[in-house]
């Protein structure tokens, strides 16, 4: 084995073992055939192609998919993320409300997630809507009511899935569920420990990942759309809080500017992801 062959074989190790078993030998042959005989270092354009190809295979994003399928997977993932946010938020604030009602809301969120995983979107929508109503009643106050926006937003995202077949998402997309989990944990701990830094850290997690997701759209645009859709709840919650705190944005345009800045990232995520989805749908 030549030095070049060994180096290309190293880059091919980025692909999963099963893929390498099926394609590795012929890919290595093509890489060697297309290299000048005196070359000892891999060409950058080949390395770039191998990195991107391997990432797509590992992310389960290497096949062709329709625009509709990309959107359905994104809606499903975003709804799951919002159910985690809502359930987590209720858990952290349980001591401030009726414990019984809070437990029922959390149970409804968990059941709704199970329904989503099983492709029972109608049941998931009903459970989420029920959790929202119960949560709103238990919280008994419009200001706090504004922090339970993940649930109605999850209902809005689930409705387009109702009546369609179950969509399956690659395992890598399920890793996205860690985002709300980390975010809610940080925010919840911040609320209980009276540590504002942790509360803002939760939002920073979302924002940082939303920026990273724009770059990740070259690998899997569904991640980008999902994060953008789920992150919308922060925008809606802020709008509702501002509305209540200031009375129909009476202090004027600053609140609107803040809101516009906050909305930029999720809107950008959705726009970039949607554009890439159209491109990826072409054979």
């Amino acid at each position: 084995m030549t030095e070049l062959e060994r180096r290309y074989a190293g880059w091919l190790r980025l692909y999963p073992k099963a893929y390498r078993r099926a394609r590795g030998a012929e890919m290595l042959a093509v890489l060697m055939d297309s290299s000048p005989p005196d070359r000892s270092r891999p060409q950058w354009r080949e390395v770039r192609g191998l990195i991107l190809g391997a990432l797509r295979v590992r992310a389960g994003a290497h096949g062709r998919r329709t625009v509709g399928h990309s959107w359905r997977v994104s809606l499903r993932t975003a709804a799951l993320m919002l159910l985690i946010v809502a359930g987590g938020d209720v858990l952290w604030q349980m001591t401030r409300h009726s414990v019984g009602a809070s437990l029922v809301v959390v149970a409804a969120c968990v059941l709704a997630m199970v329904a989503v995983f099983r492709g029972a979107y109608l049941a998931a929508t009903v459970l989420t809507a029920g959790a929202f109503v119960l949560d709103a009643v238990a919280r008994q106050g419009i200001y706090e009511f504004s922090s339970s926006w993940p649930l109605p937003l999850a209902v809005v995202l689930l409705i387009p899935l109702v009546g369609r077949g179950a969509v399956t998402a690659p395992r890598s997309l399920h890793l996205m569920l860690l985002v709300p989990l980390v975010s809610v944990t940080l925010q919840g701990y911040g609320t209980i420990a009276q540590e504002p830094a942790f509360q803002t850290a939760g939002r920073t997690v979302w924002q940082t990942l939303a920026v990273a997701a724009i770059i990740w759209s070259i690998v899997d645009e569904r991640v980008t759309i999902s994060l953008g859709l789920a992150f919308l709840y922060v925008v809606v919650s802020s709008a509702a809080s501002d509305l209540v705190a200031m009375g129909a944005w009476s202090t004027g345009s600053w609140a609107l500017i803040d809101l516009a800045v906050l909305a930029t990232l999720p809107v950008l995520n959705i726009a970039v992801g949607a554009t890439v989805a159209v491109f990826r749908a072409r054979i």
Partner: protein
Amino acid sequence: MREPTYFILAALQDEPLHGYAIMTRAGELSRGRVRLATGTLYAALDRLTGEGYVVSTHEEIVNGRARRYYRLTPDGAAALRSEAEAMAAAARVVTDRTAFSPAPRPAAGLA
């Protein structure tokens, strides 16, 4: 259809080819416009195989290197032809422009 995909299918019109030959032929047919990297070629072959446009036929070992051959399926050939016809129709909008042009107006003052 993406341009690299079009030229990969076009490369397979006449006979089954292995990966490197597809790459070379696609480059020739596109007059150098399509320069496929290996990762890109196999991502495209994955998509085309998934769609049933291309199938692998046989494998052989040449100079100790594995070669798998791919051929166009009837569905692939139909998709390629349909794309070519759409592009030809789009090209005719420009190349046959004189057929649609209004008759030249007489210059002012000559009537």
